[in-house]
């Protein structure tokens, strides 16, 4: 059964054909039926959801309309929602109740969205599989033996399994795009500075960005348009008019130049995966796009650069979790050992690793050799993108080198870090980037085809153009809608 998009849900609620409360009740019922197997949510907010739905229904009866009237929203649990448990999937914040609401979330609630719950993630958004959560396990709805991707694994699984119409994720090095690819949904990271980070618990402040996870590009444009723009509470939001993306959706790609990155040659990929991307590039051309080769000579340095800059910022941001003002406290013999014991008990291994590497990279004697060198490499990477976008309107490449992998398949941290090879360079350059479903490949030793995502990236602030291009591709190929998730869920994992 095709699922309703956010645009369809809002239209029908605004027209009085359906009530937000009825839709909310059935969404909560569906979560109750499904989520025991999927594990997308850490906290359900049924009372908030019903109250929000009643407010929307009353206002609609009074003649009001809302762009997201009655649309069920899942929120990654590193975003604050007032009066609600907000954990970052970490023991150090388990049980903490947020005293305020993130701007991006508030803007969607003001637009009539219904907050269904808070979703699982890799602890503090550090990971690419959702396996680093200290509070729950999320599976891939397409094959429960496989990870949903990360770090926004819960948000992506919720949308993929029909447990939410839209979701919010956060992307620091690929945390929206890689899981969206793994679960066959659309995941969009806007330009750095476009969406307020107020109320997003910080991981790496120069990279973190909130973005929509949806079943269609049009829904991603709708949600982006509502969230984007300056926020006085986040000084890094840019004071520059937002060009609405929804009216810019297009149906063909005539006159569009798509850059194919020389360094991202498809010959590195498994044959079946490679064939999917070759067909995706050919489909772009069939729609009228001109394919041009572009070079990102420093892209291969992306992971090395990222794994100095992001941990450095993380080690600084996470210093605030010291057991004094919120969260866990483990009493030690003195204040120093209280800090050390609290953080030892509260953080998981991956968070500890990143704090340690960041502390090292910033420490006396190593700062210039590691941190400053990485910041300079970042300049070169951003300059590569600027040069590439002089020759094309968007860059197309795989969102990940493979479909979703099995649990525990990437036990070695560096092999997990390599999962973000295609997403990290865009994060370092700050450019808008998204993953749109582009086909399926069957992993070796499996019988279940798994989804793949095409990553499309545009110049800084070119959200409207980028979403327009993605919409044309999606409309012509319909990979996401060709195979509906509920049927897959019924067969997958039954082993």
């Amino acid at each position, binding site marked *: 059964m095709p699922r309703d998009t956010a645009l369809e849900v809002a239209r029908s609620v605004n027209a009085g054909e359906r009530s937000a409360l009825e839709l909310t009740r059935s969404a909560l019922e569906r979560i109750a039926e499904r989520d025991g197997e999927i594990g997308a949510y850490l906290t359900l907010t049924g009372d908030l959801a019903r109250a929000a739905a009643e407010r929307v229904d009353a206002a609609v009866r009074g003649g009001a309309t809302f762009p997201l009237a009655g649309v069920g929203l899942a929120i990654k649990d590193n975003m604050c929602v007032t009066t609600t448990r907000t954990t970052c999937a970490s023991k150090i914040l388990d049980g903490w109740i947020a005293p305020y609401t993130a701007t991006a979330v508030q803007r969607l609630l003001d637009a009539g969205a219904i907050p269904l719950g808070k979703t699982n993630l890799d602890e503090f958004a550090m990971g690419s599989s959702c396996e680093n959560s200290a509070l729950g396990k999320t599976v891939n709805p397409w094959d429960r033996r496989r990870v949903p991707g990360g770090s926004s694994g819960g948000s992506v699984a919720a949308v993929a399994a029909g447990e939410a119409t839209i979701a919010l994720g956060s992307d620091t090095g690929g945390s929206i795009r890689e899981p969206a690819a793994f679960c066959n949904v659309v995941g969009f990271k806007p330009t750095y500075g476009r969406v307020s980070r107020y109320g997003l618990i910080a991981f790496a402040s120069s990279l973190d960005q909130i973005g929509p996870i949806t079943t269609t590009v049009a829904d991603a444009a709708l949600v982006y348009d509502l969230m984007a723009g300056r926020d006085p509470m986040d000084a890094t939001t*840019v004071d520059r008019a937002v060009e609405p993306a929804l009216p810019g959706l297009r149906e063909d790609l005539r006159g569009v130049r798509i850059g194919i990155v020389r360094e991202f040659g498809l010959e590195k990929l498994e044959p079946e995966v490679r064939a999917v991307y070759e067909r995706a590039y050919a489909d772009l051309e069939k729609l009228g796009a001109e394919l041009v080769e572009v070079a990102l000579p*420093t892209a291969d340095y992306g992971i090395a650069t990222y794994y100095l800059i992001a941990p450095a910022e993380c080690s600084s941001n996470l210093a605030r979790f010291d057991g004094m003002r919120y969260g866990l406290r483990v009493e030690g013999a003195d204040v*120093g050992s209280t800090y050390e014991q609290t*953080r030892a008990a509260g953080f998981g291994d991956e968070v500890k690793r990143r704090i340690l590497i960041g502390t090292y990279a910033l420490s006396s004697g190593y700062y210039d*050799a590691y941190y400053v*060198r990485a910041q300079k490499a970042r300049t070169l990477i*951003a300059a590569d993108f600027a040069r590439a976008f002089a020759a094309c309107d968007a860059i197309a490449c795989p969102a990940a080198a493979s479909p979703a992998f099995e649990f525990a398949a990437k036990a070695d*941290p560096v092999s997990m*870090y390599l999962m973000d090879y295609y997403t990290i360079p865009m994060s370092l350059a700050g450019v808008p980037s998204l993953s749109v479903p582009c086909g399926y490949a069957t992993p070796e030793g499996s019988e279940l085809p798994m989804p793949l995502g095409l990553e499309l990236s545009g110049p*800084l602030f070119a959200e409207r153009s980028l979403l327009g291009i993605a919409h044309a591709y999606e409309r012509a190929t319909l990979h996401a809608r060709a195979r509906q998730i509920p049927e897959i869920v019924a067969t997958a994992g039954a082993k």
Partner: protein
Amino acid sequence: MASGDIDVAYVAKLARIALTPAEIEKFGAQLGALLEHVDALAALPVADVAATAQVIAQSNVMRSDTPVPSLDRETVLRGAPQREGAYFRVPRIIGEVT
């Protein structure tokens, strides 16, 4: 930059995280492997390149110095691990930091 010689115990002290000897060994090996990977950056010619702290050309952002409501004290204190009346209760700090 020689990899694998990271003094994990010292870095953990700086980072205020208590580690067991087994963790020091495990993290030492893992961080050594990562440092080997990032050492590739040494090949990039960056001598004359400016460092990027953030990619959007934002300069200082100012606002008028007008008081606005802040978070409710009681709500915030409810999240404290320990409180005493209107205050956070914290361990003694004077003379005890090593």
